[in-house]
Structure formats: structure tokens, C-alpha cells
């Protein structure tokens, strides 16, 4: 390299071409070297996108006799095994549902305790007459209907519920997208 000038702007034509090639080569080498750790990092970082939640299944919740036929909802824990990344948890409460039975009915209605507005835990008022979400005060009737005005875009999410012949109550445990008018299950 012939230049002793501190300013690279005024190279001769040959030097400019050589300099240009060197610049491209330097950028390429530096870029390539940096791409490896970045790519490895991003690859691993995107791993959660490959993961699917547990498939929606019916989980046993309680016995029919534990749900009095007075139309008042009651809170029950949903118990299941659970895998969280590397840990496999034995059966433990993984969420809650409200169960309700009308007078003389053998059918049980199940409502998810997750607020359709933004996912807070909807609470049952002490008198059992309605639900209220502590976050932004969405209020629901005891069968999950919406009490207007409400920040919630839809009624409480009903869950499929089965009562076996022996009286075991199980619920199809599912999560739904919050904040939208339609009830769409999460994969």
C-alpha cells in the first residue's frame, strides 16, 4: 500500500479498487464471523414457537354430589399432571373452574375462571349471585352472561363438561384468547 496520507478519500484509481475489495472482504469476514453466534442465539430463542401446549382433554374435577342443585356456582380446582420445560410435576392444581347445577338437573355447567377481557381470575361475589373481575370490574351473571357496560368483549367462557354414570364430573380444560369478541381456543 503506497498511501501515507491520513485521508483515504484521495487514493489513486488502482488503490481505490484494491481498497474497495479490501473493504468488501473485511465486511464479509466480520459479518460471517458475527452471524454464527447471533444465528445460534436467535435459533434457540425461537424455540418456544415450536412448543405446543397440552392438548385439551377432559380432566376429572369432582363428584356430582359436590355440586348442589341450587343454581349457585362453586369454585373447584382442576388437578392434572403438568410438564414445565424440564420439570414433570405430579398431579397438582393447575387452574380453577366454576361449576353450577340447576334445580333437579343432572347436567353441570362449567365456566372458566379466566376473564375474557385480559385474563384475570374472575371472582364469585360473596352472595353467589354474580361474578366480578377484580382487574377492571367486568361483571357477569351467575350463568356467565355479561352485565353491561363491561370491558369484557364476551360472556364468560363455558367449558365442555361431562357427568359420568357414576357421577364423576370432568371438564374439558382449555384456554381461550382474551380481548376479542369470539371465543377462540388456544392451541
Amino acid at each position, binding site marked *: 500500500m503506497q498511501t501515507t496520507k491520513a485521508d483515504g478519500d484521495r487514493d489513486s484509481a488502482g488503490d481505490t479498487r484494491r481498497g474497495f475489495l479490501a473493504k468488501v472482504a473485511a465486511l464479509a469476514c466480520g459479518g460471517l464471523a458475527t452471524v454464527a453466534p447471533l444465528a445460534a442465539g436467535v435459533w434457540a430463542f425461537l424455540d418456544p414457537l415450536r412448543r405446543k401446549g397440552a392438548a385439551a382433554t377432559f380432566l376429572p374435577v369432582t363428584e356430582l354430589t359436590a355440586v348442589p342443585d341450587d343454581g349457585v356456582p362453586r369454585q373447584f380446582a382442576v388437578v392434572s399432571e403438568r410438564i414445565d420445560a*424440564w420439570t414433570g410435576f405430579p398431579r397438582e392444581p393447575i387452574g380453577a373452574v366454576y361449576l353450577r347445577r340447576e334445580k333437579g338437573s343432572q347436567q353441570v355447567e362449567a365456566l372458566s375462571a379466566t376473564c375474557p377481557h385480559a385474563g384475570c381470575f374472575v371472582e364469585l361475589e360473596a352472595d353467589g349471585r354474580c361474578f366480578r373481575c377484580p382487574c377492571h370490574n367486568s361483571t357477569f351473571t351467575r350463568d356467565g352472561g355479561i352485565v353491561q357496560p363491561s370491558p369484557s368483549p364476551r360472556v364468560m367462557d363455558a367449558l365442555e363438561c361431562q357427568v359420568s354414570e357414576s357421577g364423576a364430573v370432568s371438564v374439558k380444560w382449555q384456554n381461550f384468547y382474551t380481548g376479542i369478541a369470539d371465543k377462540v381456543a388456544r392451541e
Partner: protein
Amino acid sequence: MRSPFRGRPGPLRKLGDFLDDRTGWRGLVHEALYERVPGGARWRYVWGSTLVFAFMTQVITGLFLWASYSASAQTAWESVWYIQHEMAGGWLLRGIHHFMAQAMVILLALHLLQVVIDGAYKAPREVNFWLGLVLMMLVLGMALTGYLLPWDQKGYWATRVATNLAGLVPLVGPQLQQLVVGGPDYGHHTLTRFFALHAGFLPATLVLFLVVHLALFRKHGLHAKQPVTRPDGMFWPDQLLKDTVAMLAVMAVVLGVILVPAVRAMLAGGPVVAGELGAELGAPADPSQPYAAARPEWYFLFLFQFLKVFEGWGATGEFLGAIVVPGVIMLVMFLMPIVGRWRLGHRFNVAFTLGLLAGVAALTGLALDEDYYAVWADKQRLAEAARLYDETGGDEAKVLASVGDKAKARAVAGQFHAVEKLRRSEAFLAAVSTARADAERAAELAGRPERIPPAGALDLVRRDPLAQGPRLFAQHCGSCHAHVDPARPDAAAILAKSSAANLHGFGTAAWMRGLLDPEQVAGPAYFGNTAHREGDMVGFVQGDLQDKDTWKQADIEAVIAVMAAESGLGDAATPAQTIARGRELVAATDRCGGCHRFGDNGTDLGTACDLTGWGGREWLVGIIRDPTHERFYGTSNDRMPSFGKAAESAAPLLTAEQIGLIADWLRGAWYRPATLAGE
């Protein structure tokens, strides 16, 4: 500056102008790039830049690793296992971080060497040299703290040693150690603290020092190799091209180390398991298991070896070796810029640095030679000395008595040192392969569909018959019983040393067939070395059973099949008639049932062991717990201890869980991953 965009300024150019007006970025970039390189660009100047690059790589990979790492005694190993074996690309991310750390240590040495040889530490660059030394210690500190984070056996034990050495620091040692460890014992807070050091305090400090280091470097300019004979060059692109080529080369080497095993496996036609590539993950840290394979990372091996020089000096020796000598070496290095003012001083500095690196290399070589001696030792040459060593225990008088010839005895004794080294090395290599097997097993267990219990992977390993069985057996059963596949070439030698039945395959048809073989029943694999050598069973097998009129071959086979079925290890395809016939024979009071109880055949217990459920889990647990019980050997029990029965004041030798582990291991009842080939 001329733009590559000619004619009307494009939108990019406009954006550039807009930003330049407000930030002056062009000037900054210009200043950063257009730096004169006196004497022109050279390869020998690349080390500083590659170090910065290596550090950036560590920051990038480290942050992404951070996103998946969980620092606690119950989750550190587990989360690293998850990164390594479950996350897409996790093995690569971890591999780059692991091996780039090692590359960094090498680059540090090269950078230091170049600076000292070129005299770049001299005035006015003294302060920058000192900053460099601090940076070096910070990097080594990050290497040391990072080694613990996976909380595996090797990191755990290496860290115990390192922190114990910290405890030798005068006056504040114990307090220092307790602070680093995060309490009186190793656990959650050791990890949280090491993690905070590794990913927070140390790198933040490093960045501070690095900024000043680079600023001073630019202030003083590059120290050119003397004498300057060539015209000056520019940093951009001349030197930077060389720098980036070197960076790419470093990254290529790191990637090569990670990927070469994969390529080799592919060429050999074998399967490539991504989780096995890159950085190793040992078995989960277990303070209750000896770990003879404990060694620091290779770049600290010289220190490990150096400490051996002071062996026998006790704590004073360790204090000297781990604190005083390294302290003096660091002091000499800090004084280099001052010593280097004199011509001779500079020569001293160069000689000192070269000598230091040579010493480190020599100590590392020595350490490796001691550990891996068995790999390259001439075992043929040492064979006789080894035999005599084992026979005499190294006693020279006995050697003389055995060899007869004084000169020869001396020659043999002269090799005893090598024999001892060989034995130590063999023990180390055995420990390494055990450690590797443990690591593989732990990863296999963690990969079960049920995953790791909340108590952590150590709990999983401790409840694993395959991991614990051999250890418990060696500790409690192995002094009498052998456990060796009879098909192994060295089986006879092992059996000859045992003094009770070979329990390999106990409960299987093959084992039972050997017992009913007149050649074997009084041999070392069965009753040969026990008090039952001339007992009723041996008499029966060698006598009654040979009467081919009463005992047809098909009858014996039926008995074998039934016993294997009792233990639950039989062939499920055995025809029902065979089983029925076998049951009849075993129960019949004029056959086996004459001595043995079997089901409800009414034979009294106490004469011979109960064959009901023979070899099954319950039966095995029972006999290990108490062989003197009337169901088993009763009063005719030979030497076997009652492992599960508490003596008057002492706890039983083995807990119920441990007995269960031995029984399960003997029966081969342990978790096996489902293979794709459906083996």
C-alpha cells in the same frame, strides 16, 4: 466523504445526512476507522481485535443462554440439560459459548506475548498495559465462575477446590470463602452469586476497563513493531481486513471443534445426536458421590499441577502454591513497564513471559502425562514390574526374594515408580469413563416422557437402579459376589477371586441352567467358593438330576422355564404346558419340593429356600434384607449379612430403598428409552 450513491441524493443518503446533522455520526465513524497504522497493517496486531470479537461473541451467546438458564441447585443442571438436549440450536449456542471461552484464554496469551515482545507496554503505554492485566484477570474470573453454572459434577468439584483455596487468603480467607460460596455450604446461593459474578459484575467491570483500554489505545496509537521499515497503512480497511480474517478463523475453529464429531459420525454412517455435540454436561452435582475425575478446565491445569509440587506441605504449601507464587508472578507482570525502561529490563520481561508460558505449558504437559499415562505407556515393558508390584506391594526385600538376582531386582524396583503412575492413570481414566457413563445416564433419565421430578435430576439419578446398583453392589456385595457376564474373556479370572455366586443374570433361564449343570454348580460361579460347596443342592444336581429316567431333559428345561417365569424374567413365549409341567415338578415332594417350598406344596420352610416368586423383586429384596430368614438360608446361611435388619443399636447396613435399587439392578429393571429401531 464520498458517497457510493451518485447523482441526486437517495433516501438513504438523506437519512444519513439528517442523522449526521444531529449526531455527527460520520465524523465518529471516520475517526474510528481512519486511524494510521505506522509501518502498515500486520498480522501480529490482530490479537486485540480478536479478543474484542471473542468477548462480543460471549456477550451475545451469553445473553441468549441467560434467556433459558435457571440458577438454583434444583434447576441449574436441569435447565442446561434442557438447553443442550431439548431446545433447537441450544447445543450450538452452548457449544460456541463454551469453546469461545477457551479460545479467549489462548488469545489472551497471544495478545500478552505480542505486547511484551514488541515492547508495547513501555512508556507512555504503561497504564494501558496494567489495564490489560486487569482485563486478563477478569476474563479468567469469568471462566472460573462460568465453569460452575451447569452444576454438574466436574464444575461442582472444581469449584469446591477453587473456593477452598480462596479460604487460604490470609486474615479474611474464611470470610471470603463464605461470601463467595454464599453461605457455609454450597447450594442455591453459590449459584446465584456465581451467576451474578459471571454475567453481571465481572462483564460490567470488564466493559468499563475495556472502554478505557481501547480509548487509551487510540490515544497513544498503535505501537508499531520496531524498526518501522514499511510505509504507514490505514486501520480501515488494511488492518481491519486482517483483523476480521483472524476473527473468522477463530470462529471457524470454534465451530470446527463443535461440528467435527458430527461430520466424523456422519462419515462413519452413524447417527448424529445434536444434544451430544458441543460442550459436555456431566452428571448432576452430587456431594455424596466421590468424583475421582475432578479436574479444572485445561487452562487451569498448570495451577492444579503446580499445587502438587507443594504436596506434603499441608495448608502452607497450598497457600504458597495457590496464592503466593501466582501473586508474585502477577506482581512481576505489573512491574514490567517499570523494569522495561532499561534495555536489560525489557529482555528480562520477554524472557520472563516466555519462561512463564513455557512453564505453564510444561506443567500442563506434566498434568496430562500423569492423567493419560496409561494411554501411551509401554505396558508390555512394565508388565513384569507391574506383576511383581502387585505381588509384593512394592517391598524391595520381597522383590529380591522373588527375582533372586540383585541387579534384576533393582531394575524392577526402578520401574515401580512408572507402575504406580500407570495405576493412578488407569484409575483416573476409569473414573473419567464412569463419569461419562453417569452423565449419559442422567441425560437419558431426564429425557423420559415424565421429565425431571420437581426435586431435581439428582433425585432421579439417586433412584435409578442402573446408576446406583453397580455402586451399591460393589460396596456391599462385591467383596464376595461377582457380577460378570460369563461370556467375557476375563470372566474366569474374576470368578476365581469371588467367594460367592455370580449374580450376573440372576433370575434368568441362563442362570438357572448353569445352576442345574453338574459341571457348574460346584464351580466358582455358583456354590464352589461357599459353605454349600458340598451341600444338598450340589449333591442333588450332580446326583439325582443325572438320572435320566426320572429327569428327562425336557423336565429340566421345564423347571428352568418355570423358575425364570417365577422371577418375572422368563420368556413370555414359553408354552403353557411347559410351565404347567414345570410347576408340577418344582412343587412335587419327590422332586424339588422335597426340600423347597413352592406355592402351597406344604413343604416346611427352613430346609431350603422358598422357590415361590424366586428371583422376583420381592424375593430378592427379602433375601438381601435377611438371608437368615427361614424363607431363605435360615440357620445354614453362609456369610451373607442381613443388610436390612437393624442390629441391636445400629441402623441396618442398607435402607429399604437401597436394597430395592440393588434388586432392581440385578433384575435389569431400569428405565430404557424407547428406540426408533424398536430394539
